[in-house]
């Protein structure tokens, strides 16, 4: 993929290294995949520009590649490992956590080993699998957490399922504590999130409960179904001392509970994904199934609370929650349509959109997609300095455009036609140029 073998000179580029809290305009050269020169742009360049492929990067940002915390590797008709990897690299995502929900499930050490071998070409570690917390992700029996940790599982989760049983959850937590791995929970009380389960009949909830669900005649999921599980889990996390991580926070109440738990010193982190700070339940008014997500889109008050929780650091991480679906699974009546949407390609611009909503620093926002996921999963974050292999992305934070579903490689997107800002132009992994559009800058 090397477009040009000359060493690269990046002039006046704004380097944001979240691991060092560094935000500076610099001149950088990359020679044979190694950062060879790395100095403040105010210093005179001791180099001959003609020896380089020289690019003026004024107002462009160089940062660590995005670590997308939670991605479903659904091998649908139109998506597979290489499409996903390609889409990710082009969009600035250079690491991703792979959820165990796929066929076959990642709930045993053999599958974890297989996934790592199958996906990590040439020692470029790109995919980081989670192990299922319970066998078949059914929430009944604890899976082989120890063996999975040994072969490389970075944490445990039953996502998209929520671990319902309190005793099972307690045991998983105490085991994970011993293994020093986090537990990720997708909190949703199953019996509340539908029309009550009696005997064998469960009517699945389809959207947030409220005026909109009443008008549309869809089965509502009350927002308290989320916080009820989080409150229970917090008690168990306190009891066991595990690192507890809440996935996809979507309600105001959950934010409040997590904020309090953090003040009380409980080991808790959480994430959300762009739909929950960008959209609300009104999007569903036309039964558009690309907005059918889990948890469901909530009301405007919740959306604002999620956005504010990102700004005040109650929410630590922003992830794509990428869950691609084939068209066939989505062009169906709302009830029958599958839940989920793609997200990996829109993660960077939608996250950068937050900069328009508050005076939050870009450093702080970038931490939520780079440093914080690395910390949670204890994955080393590469160094950006001279004599190190080039591991970074370069993006234009100001470029404005509309998201177009036809130009995305993954589907479906709930953001078609929406204005965003920020576009990735270059991705370098382990010294290799894996995506290069930088001449278009």
């Amino acid at each position, binding site marked *: 993929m090397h477009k040009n073998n000359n060493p690269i000179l990046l002039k006046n580029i704004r380097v944001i290294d979240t691991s060092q809290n560094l935000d500076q305009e610099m001149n950088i050269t990359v020679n044979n995949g190694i950062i060879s020169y790395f100095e403040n742009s105010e210093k005179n360049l001791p180099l001959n520009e003609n020896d380089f492929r020289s690019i003026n990067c004024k107002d462009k940002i160089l940062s660590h590649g995005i670590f997308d915390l939670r991605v479903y590797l659904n091998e649908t008709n139109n998506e597979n490992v290489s499409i996903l990897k390609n889409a990710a690299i082009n969009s600035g995502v250079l690491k991703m956590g792979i959820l165990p929900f796929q066929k076959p499930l990642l709930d045993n050490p053999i599958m974890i080993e297989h996934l790592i071998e199958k996906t990590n070409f040439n020692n470029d570690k790109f995919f980081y699998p989670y192990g299922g917390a319970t066998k078949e992700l059914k929430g009944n029996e604890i899976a082989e957490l120890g063996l999975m940790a040994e072969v490389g599982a970075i944490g445990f989760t039953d996502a998209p399922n929520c671990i319902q049983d309190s005793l099972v959850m307690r045991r998983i937590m105490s085991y994970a504590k011993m293994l020093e791995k986090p537990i990720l929970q997708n909190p949703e009380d199953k019996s509340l999130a*539908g*029309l*009550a*389960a*009696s*005997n064998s*009949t*469960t*009517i699945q909830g389809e959207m947030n*409960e*409220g*005026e909109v*669900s*009443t*008008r*549309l*005649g*869809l*089965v*509502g999921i*009350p927002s308290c179904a989320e916080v009820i599980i989080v409150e229970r889990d917090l008690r168990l996390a306190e009891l066991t001392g595990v690192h507890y991580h809440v996935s996809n926070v979507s309600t105001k109440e959950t934010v409040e509970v997590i904020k309090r738990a953090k003040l009380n010193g409980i080991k808790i982190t959480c994430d959300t994904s762009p739909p929950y700070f960008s959209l609300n339940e009104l999007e569903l008014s*036309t*039964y558009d199934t690309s907005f059918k997500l889990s948890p469901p889109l909530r009301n405007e008050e919740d959306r604002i609370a999620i956005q504010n929780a990102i700004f005040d650091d109650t929410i630590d991480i922003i992830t794509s929650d990428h869950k691609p679906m084939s068209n*066939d699974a989505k*062009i*169906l*009546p*709302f*009830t*029958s349509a599958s839940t989920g949407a793609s997200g990996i390609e829109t993660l960077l611009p939608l996250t950068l959109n937050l900069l328009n909503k508050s005076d939050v620093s870009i450093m702080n926002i970038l931490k939520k997609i780079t440093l914080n996921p690395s910390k949670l999963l204890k994955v080393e974050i590469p160094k950006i300095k001279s004599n190190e292999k080039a591991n970074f992305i370069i993006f234009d934070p100001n470029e404005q455009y509309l998201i177009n579903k036809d130009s995305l490689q993954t589907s479906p997107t709930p953001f078609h036609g929406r204005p965003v800002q920020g576009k990735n132009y270059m991705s370098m992994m382990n010294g290799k140029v894996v995506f290069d559009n930088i001449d278009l800058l």
Partner: protein
Amino acid sequence: MNKFHKINKTPPPIATLNSKNLLSIEGMNKLEINSLLDRADYFADLDPLKIIKTLNGYVILNVFFENSTRTRVSFELAGRRLGAEVINISVDKSSIKKGESLLDTANTLSAMKPNLLIVRHPESGAPKLFSDYLNCSIVNAGDGRHEHPTQALLDALTIRRRLGRIEGLKIAICGDILNSRVARSNIHLLTTLGVEVRCIAPPTLMPKSLENLGVNCFNSLKDGINNVNAIMLLRLQNERMSGTESPSKREYYRFYGLDEEKLRMAHHDAVIMHPGPMNRGVEIASSLADNEDRSLIKTQVEIGVAIRMATIEAVYNAQK
């Protein structure tokens, strides 16, 4: 009913709709609704043998993904009275089990070039999906818990013919509102026409934020029907319930079943309606159901055909 002087009046024009589809009452305005009611009122008094068959060659497919007798027959009769060809298709679950998607089924039907699809489906929003992908007109004959527009129209006309007006009335809708598409359509229609609507249900069958639709909500039947002019009862939707909404039929009848005694709270000549099929001794006392002074249940069925004629004709007109 004053049949005689109406016959000599010039017939009202074909109803005007702003869309070639009738998917929901929500979004329709007063003019559209009244034009349908006026036209149907005219059809209701007309001798079926004297109706001019204006829809010769017009092909209607009755596509029912859910069992129905009265609505299907009512649409069929309405279409035939106007001269259209009506073909009934019950898409049973087996063809869906064979793996064909709803849209493939729709496209297959569409290839036969019908002018109008009348769709009933157990999932909310299914007729909307049809209308997004097909060129012909779509009339919603009931979708999940969402809407059943022609039922609300026929209910309104039944009331108007009996009580002489709609605006300014107080009307109670009582029963399983959570699961009822009839309730939603009626709420939108009656509030649009200026009715004070009261919804009565046990808390477990009352949908969230219903008052935002412009109605008053009551858990007590007696409070709710105080001085109302009409009571619309809803069927307990056993097939859509999960079993924990109501402790027993006996208890439901005790608090929400309409009998002579509870009816005394309503206006002295209040009428009773039910979209059918009714559960006697659950939603309504058997004797009340058969009391022709009070119960309009049979009239509702009669008016249904007239409403569907007006609807089919209006949709046909809107296509032109």
